[in-house]
């Protein structure tokens, strides 16, 4: 599965007047495309800090001590604020815990919904144009170097540019009409039901206006054609009158609406021609479209396009892509050699500053050269290599100075503490460990970056022969098409309003037309949360981070919102990070679950691993402190509170609250023990020498009950 987001060895602390609070202490996870990862834990376990780091909105007193958050070939911890504007809200969106504090109280809901859409719309147009142009330029360059005749290469690329935009124009016109027809049907059907029941909702007249508007929009040669146009316009002009003069008898309005829906349904089911081919024909043939049915027209256009342009273009593009990939492979082999050679510089006992930076510079250049300008999915390791190594080096050389100072501070504090102790006082404070940055750790980090890149290159070189360049060429053409459609997509105020109302409807807000002009305080908690979700979705993000989105909502709304997020995830292939402490919600949403405690991931697995085969005592405690519908015994609450992270415990952070804790739990931190391919947990209980421990009774009973319940359910079915 494609990795959307990789978090590696993330450590975050906060500077406070009492000392350094270690909020996140080295966590790793991957987020795949279309996957939901749930992060579970008590408040203060570092879940929200992790998500804020991903979104680049950490508080000012935070220190990112180490780690990488890799998204789309970039390390989000190291890019500039300016670059982050293109990612935050657009690619990675967040739904916050408290809807009231994430809405502006003095701006109408409609404005808040459309503001970002309009702003982003302009930026996206420019950005798409830029990507399209660069790619076409690179392609034409590569074609020339691959040996294609220069004039031909340039000409075909220019031609592609021209007709591609015609294609997008045609296609978006069709899509608009088609979508309008479908929306009108979706809007009209419940209304007909209500009219037949003689109880239309209060906003019925708005809805009728909307349906009429959309029906008018759906007139298009391939949706609602000329033959139906007459009747459609008659109906659309008759319906509002029929409704407003109904006086309790809605049969006529309902009948007219039903007829309209019939026409639209027929229209929406009509086959569409291939606009890509049509665009080429209209641009270059200089002739009108021949009059024939859609399937025949498609074949005709295909022949024309293939003969005239496409086959040659694909062949040229393929040679170019193959050539460029080969070149990149060559460079990779060189880079592997260089990596092996320069490695020693970074592995010596004490790093030499000038030698390190020189080696880094030459390596960065070599690695940069391996980037294939024609690849579409960016290879994150290559892209992040220079920044990662540089930042590690920077920390290393500043740490040498800082560490000396930190040791001094520690010794001063310790002397003071001992003095107080000696004078018979009982100090109300503890000596925090010296804030020394581990130099060996940094060296290990650098070695790891090298290892990963080295391994990656070897893998790429090895798998070169199995690459399917035909498929890659098709993917490249798709990439160009999607960028071209990005250029053509305009967002005007009225389009934004339409889209906002549709979104509001989609997230389940009744009477969106009226609500559009209201202020946040006029909404109830659940409704506000829906608005926040709508705003997050307005930008059509890649990754959605949900920070306890349903904690403040009641069950029905909660389950509606979860369904909504699930539905949108399916439709838009979203990757979701879901932060919550409600395990019922996790069971519903998550593919994978990470249980966090005191800044570490203590257990990681698929949701079934966590709920049926939990291995960490903290997970047991969480699961058994929550009643389900059959619980009668006393609940097992977790005693005590999470540890103060200014003085992080030496051993397992959960040990003081854990009734299964052993001596070793207080002394050494447990490593992650792998239980199965997908499941791992950090507890000494999994060590082969550890005594065998059963989960608490309440939990075992529940698991048994659940499996029994499922079996009877299956039998009934």
């Amino acid at each position, binding site marked *: 599965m494609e990795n959307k987001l990789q978090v590696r060895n993330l450590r975050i602390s906060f500077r406070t007047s009492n000392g350094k609070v270690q909020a996140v202490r080295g966590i790793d996870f991957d987020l795949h495309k279309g996957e939901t990862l749930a992060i579970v834990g008590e408040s203060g376990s570092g879940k929200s800090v992790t998500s804020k780091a991903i979104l680049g909105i950490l508080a000012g007193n935070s220190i990112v001590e180490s780690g990488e958050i890799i998204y789309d070939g970039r390390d989000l911890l190291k890019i500039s604020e300016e670059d982050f504007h293109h990612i935050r809200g657009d690619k990675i969106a967040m739904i916050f815990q408290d809807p009231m504090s994430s809405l502006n109280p003095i701006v109408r809901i409609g404005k808040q919904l459309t503001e970002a859409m309009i702003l982003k719309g302009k930026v996206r147009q420019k950005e798409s144009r830029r990507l399209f142009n660069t790619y076409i330029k690179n392609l034409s360059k590569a074609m020339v170097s691959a040996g294609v005749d220069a004039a031909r290469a340039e000409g075909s690329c220019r031609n592609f540019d021209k007709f591609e935009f015609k294609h997008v124009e045609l296609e978006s016109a069709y899509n608009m009409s088609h979508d309008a027809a479908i929306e009108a049907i979706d809007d009209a059907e419940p209304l007909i039901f209500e009219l037949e029941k*003689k109880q239309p909702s209060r906003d019925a007249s708005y809805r009728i206006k909307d349906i009429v508007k959309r029906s008018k929009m759906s007139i298009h040669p391939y949706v609602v054609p000329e033959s139906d146009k007459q009747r459609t316009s008659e109906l659309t002009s008759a319906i509002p009158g029929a409704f407003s003069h109904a006086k309790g008898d809605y049969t006529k309005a309902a009948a007219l609406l039903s007829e309209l829906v019939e026409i639209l349904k027929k229209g929406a089911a009509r086959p569409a021609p291939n606009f890509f081919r049509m665009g080429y024909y209209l641009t270059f043939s200089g002739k009108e479209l021949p009059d024939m049915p859609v399937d025949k027209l498609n074949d005709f256009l295909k022949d024309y396009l293939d003969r005239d342009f496409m086959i040659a273009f694909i062949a040229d593009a393929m040679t170019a892509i193959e050539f460029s990939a080969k070149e990149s492979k060559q460079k990779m082999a060189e880079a592997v050699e260089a990596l092996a050679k320069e490695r020693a510089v970074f592995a010596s006992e004490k790093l030499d500053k000038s030698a390190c930076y020189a080696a880094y510079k030459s390596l960065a250049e070599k690695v940069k050269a391996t980037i294939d300008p024609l690849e579409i999915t960016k290879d994150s390791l290559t892209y992040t290599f220079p920044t990662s190594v540089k930042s590690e080096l920077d920390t290393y050389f500043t740490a040498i100075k800082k560490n000396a100072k930190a040791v001094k501070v520690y010794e001063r504090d310790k002397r003071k503490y001992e003095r107080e102790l000696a004078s018979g006082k009982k100090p109300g404070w503890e000596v925090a460990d010296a804030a020394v940055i581990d130099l060996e750790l940094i060296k290990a980090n650098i070695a790891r970056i090298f290892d990963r890149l080295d391994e990656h290159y070897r893998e790429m070189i090895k798998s070169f022969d199995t690459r399917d360049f035909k498929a890659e060429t098709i993917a490249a053409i798709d990439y160009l098409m999607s960028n071209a459609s990005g250029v053509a997509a305009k967002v005007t105020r009225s389009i934004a309003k339409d889209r906002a109302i549709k979104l509001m409807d989609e997230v389940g807000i009744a009477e969106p037309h009226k609500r559009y002009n209201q202020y946040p305080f006029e909404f109830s908690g659940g409704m506000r949360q829906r608005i926040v979700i709508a705003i997050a979705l307005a930008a059509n993000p890649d990754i959605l981070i949900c920070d306890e989105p349903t904690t*403040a909502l009641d069950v*029905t709304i909660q389950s509606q919102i979860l369904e909504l997020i699930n539905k949108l995830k399916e439709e838009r292939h979203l990757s979701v990070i879901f932060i919550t402490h409600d*395990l019922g919600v996790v069971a519903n949403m998550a593919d994978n679950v990470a249980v966090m405690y005191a800044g570490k991931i203590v257990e990681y697995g698929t949701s079934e691993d966590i709920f049926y085969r939990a291995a960490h005592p903290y997970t047991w405690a969480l*699961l058994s402190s*929550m009643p389900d519908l059959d619980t009668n015994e006393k609940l097992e609450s977790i005693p005590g509170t999470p540890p103060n992270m200014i003085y992080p415990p030496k051993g397992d952070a959960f040990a003081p609250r854990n009734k299964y804790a052993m001596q070793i739990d207080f002394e050494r931190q447990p490593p992650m023990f792998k239980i199965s391919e997908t499941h791992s947990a950090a507890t000494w209980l999994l060590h082969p020498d550890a005594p065998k421990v059963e989960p608490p009774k309440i939990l075992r009973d529940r698991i048994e009950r659940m499996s029994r319940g499922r079996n009877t359910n299956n039998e009934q079915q």
Partner: protein
Amino acid sequence: MSSNDEVLLRVEHLCQYFKIGPNAYTKAVDDVSFDIKRGEVFGLVGESGCGKTTTGRSIIKLYDITSGSVYFKGIRIAAGKKSYKEAIAKAKADLKEGKIDKAECDRIIAENRAAIKTADHDQKNCDREYSRQQIEKAKSEYLPKIAAAQGENKAKLEAEYKDVMRKARKTKLVTQIQMIFQDPIASLDPRMTVREIIAEGLIIQGERNKKVIDDKVYEMLELVGLVREHASRYPHEFSGGQRQRIGVARSIIMNPELIIADEPVSALDVSVQAQVINLLNDLRDKFGLTIMFIAHDLSVVKYFSDRIGVMYYGKMVELADSDELFLNPMHPYTKSLLSAIPLPDPKYEKARRRITYNPLAAHDYSVDKPSFRELKPGHFVMCNDAEYERYMKELK
């Protein structure tokens, strides 16, 4: 699970309307009736905005109710007048149309005017009534003793009598109903120490002895699982769960008979939720408290309550024992609500389908109006005749 059938709180036809414009009202609570028996936990569930909290607040007299009455320990503590006024208006209209004669109309008007008067009186004077009862009780207890006592003993008894009388004069019936609020942060005054917060009720009630107050505060703190040293701290120094414990301590120091817990655990972490629920359960066993538990987390309500009422848009749609409700949900809204509960079981969750509730499609109330009927002992559902028969069949 309640050992006796003594009704502690009776709510009859409670309506709470809020004015939102000229002649326009939001019917937050509309004709809700139920009983709470001594010693039981009564759960109230429903989606946000359905009037659960308003019901709780109306009972404790934070609002003046529009119509209906609330009886606590047999004394009417709140009464609304709208229904009587409507009856008078209807009588007048009927007279105009000639449906009833003048004498009949006058009789109805006089009756309802009298009812309004009693309602006003009850609304205002329920506390005085109770305080009078307490004074009588104190008098009958102490006066003979004082008369019989001699010398030093007499003086001591007299002082005690004075103290008790003062408290009896200040006592209020409504203070025996206490409330725990949803948000433990917002419901504690940030500028008061925990001691001041917890003792405030006692002081208002007329307790002057500092030692008694301190002892009581310490006792309460220990009862809810905090320690004495916490008394001199401020609310911001506590975690969410501890703050909610302070809220609980504040309400039980008044020695209440009924606690209205308005979503006490909704804002807390799971592990802390369990702590607070266990605490409430312990207190209930210890003092025989009666609790009205308002929440939207159905698993918690099921775990904690003996009987559950389901509300939808200001109306009570179903009321039954908690096991019965989860076993045989009858009203379509209850069914939809139960189908929305998330459980910590991924396989079940993947297969779970939420039932949607659309009142327009589910009921046909155009001719036959619904009312609250008993399907079987203790199981009430809002339905009309046709539905009543269908539900009865389904139950068998």
